């Protein structure tokens, strides 16, 4: 069998993927399936190596928790606007199992066996031949200190690019720098 098909850029004109409503993961009444979860916004700006806004990016959000259900897609997509901004509405994730064996939380609360709550972020754009992937963790979450990915990044400045500060009640923000000073840590997924 051949190797996996090569990626190619999404290009500047990806109208086939444009579904603005997908930026709201609660649009089908997600709280009905997950009444214990807080509804949050997650927003940010994407800039390039010259500090210019990336205005033609396709940003995708995926979260393993809470699990996908008929009213909660667990997946969103948002186009950056003329200022390079994106904005999602979703449910705040909880911890995610660290292992790959199954999708259940371990009994006994072993913190090493879970990942801190996070959102998986994928960026497609003109000039990106492959998607860039990163994660957004939540500033102040006590599980961050034991998260295996965060702890694998020794440079605190680099690590901080994965941690979204809180802007207000239920509002989180993470700006993404594709290149240069403050460059976001991108993941080899």
């Amino acid at each position, binding site marked *: *069998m*051949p*190797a*996996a*098909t*090569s*990626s*190619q*850029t*999404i*290009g*500047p*004109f*990806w*109208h*086939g*993927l444009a579904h603005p409503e997908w930026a709201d993961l609660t649009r089908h009444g997600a709280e009905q399936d997950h009444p214990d979860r807080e509804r949050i916004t997650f927003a940010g700006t994407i800039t390039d*190596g*010259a500090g210019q806004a*990336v205005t*033609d990016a396709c940003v995708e959000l*995926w*979260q*393993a928790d809470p699990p*996908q259900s008929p009213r909660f*897609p667990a*997946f969103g997509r948002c186009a950056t606007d003329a200022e390079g901004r994106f904005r999602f509405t979703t449910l705040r994730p909880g911890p*995610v*199992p*660290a*292992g*790959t*064996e199954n*999708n259940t939380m371990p009994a006994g609360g072993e913190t090493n066996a879970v*990942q801190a709550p*996070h959102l*998986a972020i*994928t960026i*497609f754009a*003109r*000039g*990106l*031949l*492959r*998607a*860039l992937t990163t994660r957004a963790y939540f500033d102040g979450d006590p599980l961050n200190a034991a998260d295996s*990915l965060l702890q*694998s*990044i020794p440079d605190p400045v*680099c690590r901080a690019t994965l941690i979204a500060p809180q802007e207000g009640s239920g509002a989180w923000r993470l700006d993404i720098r*594709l*290149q*240069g000073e403050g*460059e*976001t*840590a*991108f*993941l*080899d*997924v």
Partner: protein
Amino acid sequence: MTQAAHDQTGFRPYAPGTQPPNDSPEYGSTRLRHPTAPLVPLPHTATELGGPRFLPDAFPPMADLSRVGGREALGERIIVAGRVLDEDGRPVPHSMIEIWQANAAGRYAHASDMHDAPLDPNFEGLGRVFTDAEGAYRFTTIKPGAYPWRNHANAWRPNHIHLSLFGPGYATRLITQMYFPGDPLLALDPIFHTVADEAARNRLVAVFDLGLTQPEWALGYRFDITLRGRGATPFEDEGDAH
């Protein structure tokens, strides 16, 4: 969990040379957009192994791009079909494929496309299909035209169709472009040539298929797609030994 255990359960690393580097200077738009630091390794976890599921009930298929409201688009009608398999040859079933492309004149129905070529009111260039239980998909469209871009002097993109796939997990997500055999622009296209591995590059070119061609109606092109397999090949009975 040990690294070895991850290797058995995560998706396979990409084969060297088969994926284009984001730092590809010949494609000018990469210059300010590629990260300079190495990517951070991430053994696959529940986040990367899971992925969104899309069902045709909620995302109705749009398998005929060649007409809008029953009115036929201008251009050469074609059929594109193929199978989506993983690197072990297993079908990727019931998986959504999103499709978009320029019209026959080389113009996208996108507000930002300023190419001086006509729009076609009967062509939007948007499609969506699902693979069947065997990983097979099929759609009808209009052969897209070439169009100029400003990457270098007298630069033209070869005819291509954009395809977006999800596959079984977040880590199998793929956006690619399908090219057409015999296109003289392929030899000159820096985006196509960012794939260093020649065999992998050539697999981005669809194959003309007379068997898929429908008499007196449309030429057929076959485009098979491979998504990442699991890290280790399980020795299980595939049930297809001959």
